[in-house]
């Protein structure tokens, strides 16, 4: 796109790059907002179907406009800031959550070579951005100056830091196999991975357990059920969002679902072939890669909703036990196994 602005419109390179990046950001962020609105509707419909209810069905045909009606409603509400709250941090916190949920999309490859920012530390960038996400919640909890949000913030901080550890090891296993931190490179590395026929690291017996660990950790990382202890409504009212209203609440709402979509996209990209079709067969490549990616994202989103509708909430000590005593050793062992196998297959044992 930079070339287009440079040659057709005649801007100097610096400005052409700048305008092209801004356009790229808008092209990703605006449809993403729309997708978030629709995915909230989908979540409620799936959840309703599993509970044998109808779900939203009043606003618009089949209730399709429900999310927009909700958005309009919160937009028109009054923003209430508690008098004991730390005003600046109280307002910054939802902005952080929302921003962090959006910035990671910059490195997600949509098609072969179609990515906003093709950096060679893509995966580390994702880890860095997701480690920022915890601040939105901690700050909300502290600045609200209220007991329930504070408990929630402490839970969230411990939970996210714990599960990032095992996510880190899972990503190392993937990086070892792909030999690059670049997400595009990781997707290309999955082409014809099994028997020269099936695309995707997830089908590899050494990486499949990692894919499962990553999926469950991504549930914990986005604070979805069964790990939604930060907003366990039976204990903490609404967790860190208790004191929020109007648009500041809506930012959390949008950020949360944008994060969920992002984690689905990462699951698809890292383990299940991203924009590649599932089987390395020429006719399947006629379908644009972005549709394969969307299909995978939607599949994982369905699984997220499915889990939310069926699995009861974990107790806090069980959550910590799962993170530290099961996932951490498991992912460490698999980093060991994967690097051992790769050493054997690519370098060979020293005689």
């Amino acid at each position, binding site marked *: 796109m930079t070339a287009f602005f440079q040659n057709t419109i005649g801007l100097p390179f*610096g400005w052409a790059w700048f305008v092209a990046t801004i356009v790229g950001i808008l092209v990703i962020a605006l449809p993403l907002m729309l997708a978030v609105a629709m995915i909230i509707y989908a979540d409620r419909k799936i959840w309703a179907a599993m509970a044998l209810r109808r779900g939203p069905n009043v606003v618009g045909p089949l209730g399709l406009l429900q999310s927009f009606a909700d958005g309009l409603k919160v937009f028109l509400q009054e923003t209430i800031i508690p008098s004991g709250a730390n005003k600046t941090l109280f307002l910054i916190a939802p902005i952080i959550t929302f921003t962090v949920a959006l910035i990671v999309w910059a490195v997600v490859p949509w098609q072969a070579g179609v990515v906003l920012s093709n950096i*060679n530390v893509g995966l580390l960038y994702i880890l*860095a951005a997701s480690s*920022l996400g*915890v601040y939105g919640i*901690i700050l909300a909890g502290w600045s609200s100056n209220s007991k329930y949000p504070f408990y929630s913030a402490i839970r969230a*901080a411990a939970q996210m*830091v714990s599960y990032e550890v095992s996510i880190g090891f899972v990503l190392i296993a993937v990086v070892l196999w792909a030999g690059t931190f670049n997400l595009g490179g990781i997707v290309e590395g999955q082409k014809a991975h099994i028997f020269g026929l099936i695309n995707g690291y997830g089908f590899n017996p050494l990486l499949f357990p990692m894919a499962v660990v990553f999926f469950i950790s991504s549930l914990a990382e986005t604070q979805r059920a069964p790990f939604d202890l930060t907003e366990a409504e039976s204990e903490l009212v609404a967790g860190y969002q208790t004191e929020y209203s109007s648009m500041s609440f809506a930012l959390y709402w949008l950020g949360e679902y944008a994060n969920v979509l992002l984690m689905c996209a990462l699951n698809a990209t890292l383990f299940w072939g991203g924009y590649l079709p599932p089987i390395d067969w020429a006719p399947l490549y006629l379908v644009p890669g972005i549709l394969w990616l969307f299909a995978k994202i939607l599949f994982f989103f369905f699984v997220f909703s499915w889990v939310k509708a069926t699995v009861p909430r974990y107790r806090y000590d069980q959550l910590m036990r799962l993170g530290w005593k099961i996932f951490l050793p498991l992912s460490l062992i698999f980093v060991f196994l994967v690097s051992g196998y790769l050493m054997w297959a690519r370098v060979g044992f020293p005689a």
Partner: protein
Amino acid sequence: MIQLIAFYLFATIVCLSGAFTIISRNPVHSVLWLILAFFNAAGLMVLAGAEFIAMLLVIVYVGAVAVLFLFVVMMLNIDFAELRAGVMRYAAVGLALAVALVAEIVIAIGAYSAGGLALGRRIAPIEADVPNIEAIGRLLYTRYLFIFEGAGLVLLVAMIGAIVLTWRQRSDVRPQNINRQINRRAKDATRNMNPPVGQGVEL
């Protein structure tokens, strides 16, 4: 051009937030300013072409260390009047430190303007076409292998030390046996009885 703007933006924010880290009365604000400083320092490193170090700075310091800082600071209930009362007591030590730092800066600037040291050949020349993750990896696992593994060993010892210091076995509590909880089935816990009238149930 844009590099220059970005550099001055990041550098100004690093300096300002560093200053605010010290000035802030509220310890939580201090930690948050510190986080902002880390974040912008990472921006400076990206500009310098060290994107790997930049990302590690954000992941390790912002993502883990500062979260734990914030965790501790949020829980503390710090009495500000008491803190301010202590300032005069430590004024002499603080002043001495400040003088030492200023003297060091002056000496460093003097030495720098007198001309740098001739270091000879660089040990690890940077090749432009190698991504810096690879460049660092090559150095760490060849030339500095023993030092690197030594550092790992030191960290391991520190970790074991921390565990030993905080480890205590309590005999007065009944710990949860997760396997037993998971393996427990309804038929192990309940009995279906049909007791005759007037006899009750044996437990």
